[in-house]
């Protein structure tokens, strides 16, 4: 790798509202190289990538692509010079088809306009090449979150760029999908012309995909090393910058079973049943049966599209049930509206925060307090200072970085996720539904969230259900795991103590076959 | 009582259908004219269908085309614009539907040029009406008086443009009379009220306001009252609304004005249409006088006005 760097960044600085989020950042990517960009939530990773892709202008600094200095006035400029990006917040347009989304901005043309036939054919081949089974004519809005993430990544790879920027491309993906993606990325750099920047909070991924890694902390580059030579513990120390947190996140690092069990009291007596579902069906689900007890965390595992999200949405009153029976704390429950679900003590963190998680213009404090305002009011008037104090207290252990009095859009992706988790904590619920609760959350805070979930079930009379695409996370946080297959489950559960991530994958797959 | 909703299908029956396309039916002046059209039509065995173009020339065109579709026996028009109505006249001519005008005429020169022809027009002379109001004002203050005048007008219609011209033709003869402000009252009492208040704020020595439409006059009247300028600012206006005529009799704010006779216009028009359809001869032009109204004659004018007090 003695060639000219495909991307060379020097002295990039950027401030929002006079707060510096990037401070003289230097970064070099050589052709044929994957560089991992890691750091705590709000470290400035996405900001850097947005600058590199022309979505935002830096305050200072210069960008060289293929040895030539470039100024990007817009993403279109960046693409012209061979830079393509996948953004943390997906950019796909839900009204358009998959094919149109993939080729938006560089459409195949015929003499009279768009050559849609050619476009869909090319999209079909592309998707097939990457083993993604989606009709390119399907509207993106109808795809699942994971499918959309795959389409987005594939669309970026298709741009025939010299530099590919991937901002947390794996958050919604299943382990095997992640493996596929990593293989694809390695394949792309293999011929030594393309450079990739890969942002992730999952160190395992970083070690399997990246040649070099850069750690950002509070906008400064604090480590720049070949992955081979780096030590995970050291890297974590650089990310967090605080040894105390490293201790608690230790468990997360090693994905072997048992390590998580240490945090749990081995033989706890279960509380009463908080949720019982019998033979529940809806338009997309069929005969689901399971139960959750007070004092336990139940992990839901399944392949993408196995119906877990739909199950949560149904419980929360977002879809109508067609048959079966639900009992909540021993009483019959018929989901009807989120308001009612909330009133009955159900809290829900959705998998796509940007879509239906928070209100962008409201401040973080307002967003966190929104469901529980009735507790902090008299005659309809909000007690602002009380609300503020309560929210800040809840946010404290989550290490939220950013000004909670500013609109929530000003937070980095991971910090927005922490905000939503804080909201759940504020609600004092009886049953918590968490769909990808630590999506995009950094290593330190992730461990903290896991600890908070464990504390919740141990302390109060709460039952928790968790969906996660990370097997390690499920094994870490759950008492037992229920596997969804093909939009149904009979409620058979597996004690996490007896499981490894490999077991889990096999379980999800095996019975599809049988 | 808001018009018939029967269709023109019944042309086979005895009652013939007359189409009337008016300026606006939300202006009480035309509302009164419409009522008179229908009532007088009934007497003559004519069914009158009245449409309003609400200030929009192409709407008027559309309505006249509808009349052609309906094969009405005759059409009476209050033209939005004397020039562009000529197109419609030609279309009516082609369909052999006799054309009558009421309230104001089409551009006769243009008609002659384009070979379009009308049967008759019943006009009230807006220009002389304006002159009448101007003369009343001069009579009120005296020829040698120093008078600051504000005009609340409607600058985008030809009828009101003529009223203003007539009014100014008199005023300009007297060097003591000055028009200090001209604002658009938009034929609306609310706008009339607002521009009149502004006018009086801008010109503390204003003595007279001339309003060329009745609805705006209503607003001007209230503006003067609510600013407690009775006795300082007087109103002179075109209006045939009973409320306004009664005000003249009372004479605190509204000193004098001119009234058109929408009822009479419609009555004469209907009578002439009936005659024409009976193959009798009709005059090509009937002038309905615009009556001056002063405190002295207000009581006698009251029955000719319309609306409620």
């Amino acid at each position: 790798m003695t060639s000219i760097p495909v991307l060379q960044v020097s002295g990039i600085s950027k401030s929002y509202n006079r707060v510096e989020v990037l401070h003289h950042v230097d970064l070099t990517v050589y052709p044929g190289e994957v560089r991992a960009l890691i750091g705590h939530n709000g470290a400035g990773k996405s900001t850097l990538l947005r600058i590199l892709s022309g979505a935002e202008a830096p305050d200072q600094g210069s960008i060289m692509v293929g040895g030539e200095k470039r100024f990007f006035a817009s993403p279109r400029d960046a693409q012209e010079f061979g830079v393509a990006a996948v953004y943390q917040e997906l950019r796909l347009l839900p009204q358009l088809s998959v094919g149109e989304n993939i080729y938006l901005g560089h459409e195949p043309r015929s003499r009279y306009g768009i050559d849609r036939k050619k476009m869909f054919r090319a999209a079909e081949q592309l998707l097939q090449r990457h083993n993604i089974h989606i009709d390119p004519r399907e509207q993106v809005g109808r795809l699942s979150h994971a499918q959309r993430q795959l389409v987005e990544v594939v669309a970026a790879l298709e741009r025939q760029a010299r530099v590919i920027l991937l901002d947390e491309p794996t958050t919604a993906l299943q382990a095997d999908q992640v493996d596929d993606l990593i293989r694809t990325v390695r394949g792309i750099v293999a011929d030594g012309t393309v450079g990739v920047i890969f942002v992730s909070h999952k160190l395992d991924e970083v070690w399997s995909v990246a040649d070099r890694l850069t750690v950002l902390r509070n906008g400064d580059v604090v480590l720049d090393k070949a992955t081979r030579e780096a030590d995970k513990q050291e890297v974590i120390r650089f990310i967090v910058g605080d040894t105390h947190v490293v201790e608690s996140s230790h468990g997360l690092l090693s994905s072997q079973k048992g390590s998580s069990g240490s945090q749990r009291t081995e033989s706890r007596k279960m509380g009463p049943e908080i949720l019982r579902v019998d033979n529940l069906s809806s338009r997309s689900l069929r005969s689901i049966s399971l139960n959750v007890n007070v004092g336990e965390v139940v992990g839901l595992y399944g392949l993408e599209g196995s119906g877990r999200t739909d199950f949560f949405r149904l419980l929360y009153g977002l879809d109508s049930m067609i048959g079966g029976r639900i009992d909540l704390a021993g009483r019959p429950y018929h989901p009807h509206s989120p308001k009612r679900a909330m009133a009955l003590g159900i809290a829900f963190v959705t998998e796509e925060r940007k879509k239906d998680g928070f209100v962008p213009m409201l401040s973080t404090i307002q967003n966190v307090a929104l469901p529980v305002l009735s507790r902090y009011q008299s005659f309809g008037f909000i007690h602002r200072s009380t609300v503020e104090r309560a929210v800040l207290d809840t946010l404290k252990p989550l290490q939220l970085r950013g000004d909670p009095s500013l609109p929530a859009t000003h937070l980095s992706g991971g910090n927005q996720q922490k905000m939503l988790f804080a909201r759940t904590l504020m609600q004092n619920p009886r049953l918590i539904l968490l769909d990808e609760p630590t999506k995009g959350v950094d290593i330190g805070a992730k461990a903290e969230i896991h600890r908070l979930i464990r504390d919740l079930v141990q302390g109060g009379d709460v039952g928790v259900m968790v969906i996660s695409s990370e097997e390690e996370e499920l094994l870490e946080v759950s008492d037992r795991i229920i596997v969804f297959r093909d939009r149904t489950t009979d409620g058979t559960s597996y004690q996490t103590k007896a499981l490894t991530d490999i077991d889990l994958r096999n379980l999800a797959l095996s019975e599809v076959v049988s | 009582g808001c018009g018939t909703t029967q269709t023109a299908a019944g042309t086979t029956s005895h009652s013939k259908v007359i189409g009337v396309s008016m300026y606006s039916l939300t202006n009480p002046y035309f509302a009164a004219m419409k009522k008179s059209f229908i009532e007088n039509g009934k007497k003559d065995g004519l069914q009158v269908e009245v449409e309003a173009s609400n200030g929009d020339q192409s709407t008027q065109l559309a309505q006249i085309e509808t009349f052609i579709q309906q094969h009405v026996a005759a059409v009476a028009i209050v033209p939005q614009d004397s020039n562009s109505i000529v197109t419609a006249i030609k279309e009516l001519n082609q369909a052999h539907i006799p054309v009558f005008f009421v309230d104001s005429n089409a551009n006769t020169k243009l008609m002659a040029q384009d070979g379009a022809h009308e049967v008759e027009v019943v006009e009230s002379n807006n220009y002389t009406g304006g002159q009448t109001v101007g003369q009343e004002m001069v009579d009120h203050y005296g020829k040698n008086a120093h008078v600051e005048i504000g005009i609340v007008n409607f600058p985008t219609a030809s009828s009101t443009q003529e009223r203003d011209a007539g009014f100014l033709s008199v005023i300009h003869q007297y060097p003591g009379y000055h028009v200090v402000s001209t604002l658009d009252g938009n034929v609306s009492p609310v706008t009339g009220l607002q521009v009149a208040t502004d006018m009086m704020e801008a010109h503390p020595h204003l003595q007279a306001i001339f309003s060329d439409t009745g609805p705006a006059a209503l607003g001007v009247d209230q503006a003067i009252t609510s600013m407690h300028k009775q006795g300082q600012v007087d109103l002179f206006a075109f209006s045939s609304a009973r409320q306004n005529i009664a005000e003249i009799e009372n004479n605190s704010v509204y000193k004098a004005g001119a009234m058109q006779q929408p009822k009479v216009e419609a009555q004469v028009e209907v009578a002439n249409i009936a005659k024409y359809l009976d193959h009798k001869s009709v005059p090509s032009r009937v002038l309905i006088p615009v009556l001056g109204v002063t405190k002295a004659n207000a009581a006698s004018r009251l029955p000719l006005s319309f609306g409620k007090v």
Partner: protein
Amino acid sequence: MKRTRHIPKEMGIFSVLVVVYLLFGLLAPTFMTTSNTFTLLLNGSVVALLAIGETFVLLTAGIDLSVGAGIALSGVVAAIAIQHGLPWYVGVLLALASTTLIGLFNGVVIHYVKVPPFIVTFATMGVASSIPLILTNATPIPITSNTFSFIGQGFIGPIPFAVLLLAVVAIIAHLILSRTVFGLHVYSVGGNRESARLAGVNTAKVDVVVYMVSGLMAGLGGLVDASRLMSGYPTAGSGTSLFFSISAAVVGGVSLFGGVGTILGAIIGAVLIAVVSDGMDIMNVSSYWQPLVIGLIILVGVTIDTLRVAQSQRVSFREVFVARFTRRAVDHAAGEAKSASK
């Protein structure tokens, strides 16, 4: 853009249009004649032209308030040009240029200065309505060119030329939006401007061009009106044109929030409004009642369409009802259980 296996969304409001048309036809025999049908289309052609332009703008989540005033401007510019002895086609070109320039200004300020479209086009509406008044001193200017009269008064066979013009313009607009790269970019900008920008769409071009299209359509509308009236009427278009053109697009399924809608829908909306207006005139509905009748017909029409879509896309009514009913029963039981336990 979408697969044709779905019934086009416009079918709903199209059925409403057909039903309304037939109803008026039943109620008034003169309504459903060829001649009256073309008359109503001719009368609705200006609103339909404006609705086409407005559709481009609304698809980008913009709005163009200046189109009504553009009608007056275009007509007066053409009339003055012809009055000054210029050939009719020069008048036509100048008229179209004037409103397209207004559109260019709108687009540039909206895109580059980021002033809300409502404000920018509010301002140009003022400018475009003042200029004709100032130029003409509020007096209509007669147009004498006979060729010019063909635009609004000519016929090709039984079809008014203006209606043919509308049809051609509508087809071109439809092709642009549904078949070209530019059209896709218009939808993408309206769907999510930031996403479109990140994907490399030239949002500046989209913004500027859609307002120019809207200006051009206003210019065409002005020419049709001027030619029908044979005069440059300085307050033409000041009535309901603007309002009806936006309503037509919205009735036809164009969203005020961008990204959703088609030319076909907007045209159906415009024709629906033309049918109702003409039908009410034919039936001699009192002008006091007309706003009420048109409002209710449109509300009922769109409501039926909305319910139909809701029904087909989501759960069937039966399912919802069954679910509701079950729920009542269950809740009721729960309520009883609760009270019993106390």
